[in-house]
C-alpha cells in the first residue's frame, strides 16, 4: 500500500513537471522541470529494482545531459522567445485532440492487457553485475559501436559549435569574412556584414 502511495506521489510530480516543461514559456524553467521529471523517473527505476539504471539516469541524464542543455541556454540566451502571434495557431490547436486520442489508445491497450502479477526481478545486488556480464558478452558489438558513436559525436560537435575555424593554429584562420571570401570570391561583402 505504501509503495502504491509512493508511486502515485512520484508519478504526480513527474506528470506535473512534464506539463510545466511543455506549457511554460521560460526555457531555463523548462530545463529545471525536465530535471525534476528525470529525477522522478530515476526514483521509479529504483522502485522497479533497476538500481544501476537509476544511477545511470542521474549521472547521464539529470547530470550530464541537463548540464549541456543549461549551458546551451546560457550560450544562446533565447530569453524572450515565442512572442507575437503564432502563424500556425490553428494547426497547433489540433495537437490537443490528437494527443488525447493517442493517449487514450495507448492506455486502453496497455491497461486492457491482463497483466499477470509482476514477480520481482533478479535480486538487486547482482543486477549491475548481470548487466555488466551481458555488456561484455552478447552486447559486445553495441558496446564498441557506442564508443565510435561518442567519438563521431565529439568530432561533429567541435566542428559545428566552435566559433572560429582553426583555433589550433594561432594565425591559421582570419575573421569570418575571409572564411566566406575564400569559399566564394565574389559577393562576400553582404554575408560578412550578417555576422
Amino acid at each position, binding site marked *: 500500500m*505504501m*509503495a502504491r502511495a509512493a508511486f502515485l506521489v512520484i508519478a504526480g510530480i513527474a506528470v506535473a513537471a512534464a506539463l510545466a516543461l511543455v506549457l511554460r514559456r521560460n526555457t531555463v524553467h523548462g530545463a529545471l522541470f525536465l530535471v525534476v521529471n528525470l529525477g522522478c523517473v530515476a526514483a521509479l527505476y*529504483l522502485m522497479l529494482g533497476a538500481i*544501476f539504471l537509476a*544511477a*545511470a539516469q542521474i*549521472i*547521464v541524464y539529470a*547530470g*550530464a*545531459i541537463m*548540464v*549541456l542543455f543549461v*549551458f*546551451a541556454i*546560457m*550560450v*544562446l*540566451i533565447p*530569453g524572450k522567445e515565442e512572442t507575437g502571434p503564432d502563424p500556425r495557431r490553428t494547426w497547433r490547436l489540433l495537437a490537443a485532440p490528437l494527443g488525447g486520442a493517442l493517449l487514450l489508445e495507448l492506455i486502453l491497450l496497455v491497461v486492457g492487457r491482463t497483466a499477470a502479477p509482476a514477480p520481482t526481478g533478479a535480486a538487486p545486488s547482482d543486477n*549491475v*553485475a548481470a*548487466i*555488466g*556480464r551481458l*555488456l*561484455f*558478452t552478447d552486447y*559486445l558489438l553495441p*558496446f*564498441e559501436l*557506442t*564508443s*565510435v558513436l*561518442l*567519438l563521431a*559525436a*565529439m*568530432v561533429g*560537435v*567541435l566542428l559545428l*559549435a*566552435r*566559433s572560429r575555424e582553426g*583555433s*589550433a593554429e594561432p594565425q591559421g584562420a582570419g575573421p569570418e569574412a575571409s572564411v566566406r571570401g575564400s569559399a566564394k570570391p565574389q559577393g562576400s561583402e553582404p554575408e560578412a556584414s550578417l555576422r
Partner: protein
Amino acid sequence: MSAYLPVLIFAVLIVAFGVVSLAVARLARPSRPDVVKLANYECGAEPIGPAWVRFPVGFYLVALLFIIFDTLAVFLFPWALVLKPLGLSAFWVMAAFIGIVGLGWIYAYREGVLEWK
C-alpha cells in the same frame, strides 16, 4: 520496500529541519524592516544590468567533453564488477572503448578546445 524506509525517514527529517528552523526563527526574531535593510546585498555593490548575460561558447564545448566522458564513466561501473569473472577479455574490450573515446580527447586537445582564452 522496507529497505528504503530509513531513506524516507532521513528525507523527512531533512525537510523538517529546514521548515522547523525557519518557522521558529520567524516566530522568535524581531521584525523592523527599513530601506537599507531591504536593499539587495550583492557583495556590497548594487547589481547592474540584466541577468541574461551571454556566455562564451567555450563553456559549452567543455560541457560537451564532460558529457562524453561522463557516459564513459557510467560504462566503467558494470565493467569493474565483472572484470574478475570475465578476465582479460573484458579488460581488452574496455581498453578498446577507452582508446577510441580517448582519441577524441586528443582531437579536442589538438583543436585547442581545452585552452582557456
